[in-house]
């Protein structure tokens, strides 16, 4: 029998049950210790010092970074510690743009909350901070350094969970700040707009872009037929803001509220998710049978898509060409609704309610507009809709549920579970099962792909076939599988990637949550919804069938491609200027040669190319006739190394080829 070990916190004996630190032991026992910089899914940072406790014999130590030991005597709220905490909050406020009344975060701001709890009624210190401009550059997020308390949560989130490292500390001491490289705006760096930094930020320093007023503008305009569509994960996150148990399905109430707000119809993005399942599964089966590029990656998460475009352009052929459900919905709605409402296409306006910040970016991609008319006009996060509903004075708890409108409001359980990691795979497997075996599934639940691990593998037997599936969430895990695929060691056919921890239930547009428990309960909520539905396979959705009959023809048809598929572009990793390498710039008659030294080309030896060319020119005394520049991307990263010799872009460029081209150009110049 193993004996339990105990420590004492505030006079109470508490068992140590494998907790990593004193803080977690205390929280387990319901003793709240304030924190800014501790998150169970991030590394311990130890900077905010609010979690300080007094441990007999050791004095004040940070409970987040102290391992529990049997026999410890801990006090969480001594006079000295209370005084220290209060001063810490005062110090933070003195260096803070205190504009709580107009701050987006004021309902969930940890700083404001703590200031209240600690009884900070006056900041005794002189206000002082170097005001920094707002970063409003991108469609998804807004950064306001004047509200940053430098807890580093976002830095660790982006680095450790997403594996990107867009944000980091810069400067030192009281000049420290958290910024993207060179203090640039998010738009000009590798940010994929997943918004996880915003989700974890305890203050209003990073927040999702707010488009509520744009939504009101649409609703206020009588010429428009403004419709709403809600994503699967929204329905199980929404109720939290109104005191309901986490994971409660409130689809009907949201529908009613949206109607009351003035939307002419309320639809379900889940309908489009059903379409996605059909298209994506068909694409997958086709790749398998026709020997297409495998493994196939899912493409319904726009943050992941942007990530792949930036970091793994060479894997873009592996991405399913299917649009995300939001983008499919937009295309279908714009196709069907003008007829239904009898208005021109551009008078139909679609407001998409998403758990997601990246979807705001996606909706602005040029691929999803026609003649400047966006398919999805406005993307609101779950939080924004909550704000709108509260702002309109709607008593959400009292409102009677209503049904969604048809046809785009009809869905199956397969589409609903898109909102949780593993859901897309499961939905596709349900479809593939029927397709390959011709039989209906007895048990629709593929438990193998469910769960919360960031990287899960499953092998599923369907008839005579085995499908090897990898499901990842959090992009640090996507990095892992991408590297494996590149190295040819992946052993997998289908890969599902979701950028947010836990999938869309954990999206940055959802009500603020901490810890994994909330998102797990939201996931459970979605599985409950699935179980309660009549239909569990996307192909059974009668309106999907109808759409194929009336509009799309067959899956993956030409029309389906036009409306439901898309294409990708390798993206500049770094937007930047060229660097002159050799030869001064003044003389015009020089032959301009640009060599890409971006990540992708670099890995393929572009620097050696650069070196060799420089040496070659020097040896042959030609350096004055050629101006070599280095650039950070020719946007052909999958075909690097790339060089541009006076307008001709050379792909997969070897030194020999480059030398030949340069010599040829120089000769012809001389001939002239």
């Amino acid at each position, binding site marked *: 029998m193993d004996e339990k070990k105990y420590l004492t916190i505030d006079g109470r004996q508490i068992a140590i049950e494998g907790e990593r630190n004193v803080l977690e032991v205390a929280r387990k026992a319901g003793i709240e210790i304030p924190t800014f910089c501790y998150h169970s899914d991030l590394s311990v940072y130890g900077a905010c010092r609010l979690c300080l406790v007094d441990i007999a014999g050791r004095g004040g130590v940070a409970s987040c970074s102290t391992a529990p030991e049997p026999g410890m005597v801990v006090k969480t709220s001594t006079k000295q510690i209370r005084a220290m905490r209060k001063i810490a909050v005062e110090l933070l406020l003195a260096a803070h743009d205190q504009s709580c009344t107009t701050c987006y975060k004021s309902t969930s701001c940890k700083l404001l909350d703590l200031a209240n709890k600690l009884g900070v009624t006056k900041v005794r210190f002189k206000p002082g901070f170097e005001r920094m401009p707002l970063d409003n550059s991108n469609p998804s997020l807004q950064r306001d350094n004047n509200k940053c308390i430098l807890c580093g949560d976002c830095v660790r989130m982006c680095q450790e969970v997403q594996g990107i490292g867009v944000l*980091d500390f810069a*400067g030192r001491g009281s000049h420290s700040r958290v910024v993207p490289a060179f203090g640039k705006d998010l738009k000009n760096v590798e940010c994929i707009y997943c918004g996880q930094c915003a989700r974890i930020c305890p203050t209003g320093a990073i927040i999702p872009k707010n488009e509520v007023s744009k939504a009101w503008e649409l609703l206020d305009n009588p010429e428009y037929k403004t419709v709403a569509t809600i994503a699967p994960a929204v329905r199980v996150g929404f109720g939290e803001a109104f005191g309901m148990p986490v994971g409660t399905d409130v689809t009907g109430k949201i529908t009613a509220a949206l109607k009351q707000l003035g939307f002419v119809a309320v639809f379900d993005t889940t309908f489009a998710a059903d379409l996605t399942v059909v298209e994506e599964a068909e694409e997958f089966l086709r790749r398998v049978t026709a020997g297409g590029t495998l493994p196939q990656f899912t493409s319904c998460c726009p943050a992941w898509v942007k990530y792949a475009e930036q970091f793994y352009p060479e894997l873009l052929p592996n991405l399913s060409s299917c649009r995300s459900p939001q983008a499919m919905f937009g295309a279908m709605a714009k196709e069907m609704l003008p007829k239904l409402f009898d208005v021109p296409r551009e008078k139909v306006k679609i407001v998409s309610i998403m758990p997601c910040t990246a979807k705001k970016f996606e909706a602005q991609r040029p691929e999803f507009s026609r003649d400047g008319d966006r398919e999805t006009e406005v993307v609101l996060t779950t939080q924004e809709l909550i704000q709108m509903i509260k702002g309109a004075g709607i008593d959400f708890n009292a409102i009677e549920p209503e049904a969604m409108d048809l046809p785009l409001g009809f869905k199956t359980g397969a589409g609903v579970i898109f909102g949780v990691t593993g859901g897309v795979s499961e939905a596709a497997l349900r479809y593939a099962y029927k397709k390959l075996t011709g039989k209906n599934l007895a048990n629709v639940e593929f438990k193998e792909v469910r769960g919360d691990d960031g990287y899960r593998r499953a092998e599923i037997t369907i008839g005579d076939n085995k499908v090897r599936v990898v499901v990842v969430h959090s992009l640090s895990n996507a990095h892992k599988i991408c590297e494996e695929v590149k190295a040819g060691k992946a052993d997998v056919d289908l890969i599902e990637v979701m950028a947010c921890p836990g999938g869309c239930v954990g999206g940055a547009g959802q009500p603020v949550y901490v810890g994994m428990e909330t998102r797990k309960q939201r996931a459970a909520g979605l599985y409950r919804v699935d179980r309660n539905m009549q239909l569990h396979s996307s192909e059974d959705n009668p309106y999907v069938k109808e759409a194929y009959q009336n509009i799309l023809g067959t899956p993956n048809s030409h029309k389906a491609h036009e409306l439901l598929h898309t294409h990708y572009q390798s993206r500049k990793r770094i937007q930047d200027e060229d660097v002159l*390498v050799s030869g001064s*710039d003044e003389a015009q008659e020089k032959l301009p040669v640009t060599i890409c030294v971006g990540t992708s080309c670099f890995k393929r030896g572009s620097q050696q190319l650069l070196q060799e060319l420089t040496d070659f020119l020097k040896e042959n005394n030609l350096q004055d006739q050629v101006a070599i520049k280095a650039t950070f991307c020719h946007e052909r990263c999958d075909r690097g190394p790339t060089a541009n010799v006076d307008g001709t872009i050379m792909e997969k460029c070897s030194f020999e080829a480059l030398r030949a081209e340069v010599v040829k150009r120089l000769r012809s110049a001389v001939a002239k």
Partner: protein
Amino acid sequence: MEKELSSATQFGKVCEILDRYDRDPAKLIPILQAVQEEYRYLPEEILTLVATSLNLPPAKVYGVATFYSHFTLTPKGKHIIRLCDGTACHVKGSTALLDAIRKRLGLTGKQQSTPDLLFTVETVSCLGACGLAPAVVIDDKVHGQVTPEKAVALVEELINAEA
């Protein structure tokens, strides 16, 4: 648009430096030191290149470059005057030295370098020559027991040499 680096600089130099340190991300600091020695500051383009080559997020490289006071992201003057404001020098009147030198060079406010980029004036805390406090280092040469008059004379010497 492209940016020109000073004509003496060759892109190849960075590659050489990177190779010298085996393109090892752990050697970021010595690499930046070598780059700064070459270019006299850390140009943004070069930092981006270093980041790409070492497979580090550019934000991290920027973070390191802005943490250490030895690194600078803006070009420094040709002559670097470093004034010690360590304890020993401080009690022996380093403030007066600083004022005198800055006044002679016409530096105001937070300005550290003269507009013609001939001079940069910095303070450091202790050069380890406390026995000779107050101490000033001008272009790597240590001068001890400096008075404001002597400091200005040293600066004059450089100005005349440049003229």
